[in-house]
């Protein structure tokens, strides 16, 4: 694990992975969205509004999974003090916030025709909104210090405190009487969904997951290179200083 956390190894490995992840993401997202928009059946109750699911569910999954990744990087940062984990955490933040915003926006676009309201203070919606604010807080906190290492540590602590929101999001539909529907797909039981709707959802979810990974890896690659550039420029400047 530590071997792959070496910046040089990381750049080599990610340089090989990113093109494959990007190509896979493009193909799977295209298949999932076209299938979901054109060929998947409409829901007997919701009609064509159910097609929003092919965007909303992957975005919701990646909002939570991205935050779990951010928390894992934060553990690596606090326990092993690994600089690559710091850079990855900083780069996951904005992407996770973007996917959480996508989840909230598509949820609103689905809620308006189905519930008659853009927003309700439902436990699921509110806990996802809290997740969005946690991402924004992390983005702001890691950039709030003159010493970047202090920013990384503060951000890591915030990220770990915020992990408590993930089970609240997951179980909110079971713990409270919510307007949001219960989970349709679980790890333990059979999905409560028509198979013709399930396949395009799996394609789009896998596609967006690969896209998320490719974006985060690419941003982290850029951050590693930018740090190398700063180090080289500082070394050059200090070598030119008289005395």
């Amino acid at each position, binding site marked *: 694990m530590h071997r792959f956390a070496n910046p040089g190894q990381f*750049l080599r490995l990610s340089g090989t992975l990113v093109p494959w992840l990007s190509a896979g993401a493009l193909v799977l997202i295209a298949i999932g*969205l076209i299938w979901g928009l054109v060929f998947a059946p409409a829901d007997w109750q919701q009609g*064509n509004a159910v097609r929003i699911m092919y965007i909303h569910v992957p975005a919701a999954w990646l909002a939570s999974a991205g935050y779990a990744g951010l928390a894992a990087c934060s553990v690596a940062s606090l326990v092993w003090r690994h600089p690559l984990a710091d850079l990855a955490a900083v780069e996951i933040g904005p992407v996770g916030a973007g996917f959480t915003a996508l989840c909230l926006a*598509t949820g609103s676009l689905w809620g308006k025709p189905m519930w008659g309201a853009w927003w309700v203070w439902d436990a699921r919606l509110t806990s996802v909104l809290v997740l969005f604010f946690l991402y924004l807080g992390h983005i702001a906190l890691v950039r709030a210090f003159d010493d970047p290492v202090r920013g990384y540590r503060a951000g890591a602590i915030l990220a770990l405190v915020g992990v408590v929101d993930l089970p609240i999001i997951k179980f909110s539909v079971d713990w409270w009487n919510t307007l949001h529907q219960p989970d349709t797909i679980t790890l333990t039981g059979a999905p409560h969904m028509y198979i013709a709707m399930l396949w395009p959802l799996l394609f789009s979810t896998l596609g967006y997951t690969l*896209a998320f990974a490719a*974006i985060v890896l*690419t941003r982290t*690659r850029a951050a590693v290179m930018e740090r190398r*550039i700063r180090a080289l420029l500082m070394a050059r400047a200090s070598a030119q200083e008289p005395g």
Partner: protein
Amino acid sequence: MELWPYIAASYALGILIPGVFAVSAFVRVGAARRRLAAIDPRANRSGARSGRGGSQ
């Protein structure tokens, strides 16, 4: 109620938001690679494209 405007807006956002992140990430890494190659001959020689010059 007409549902297609809501569906179209969702799909537009579903393409636009990840697309903006993807394009900006690839532009940023390209700029970093060119800058690194310009200031670090070792990176230029060994191929910053695969990141071999980027180790610390």
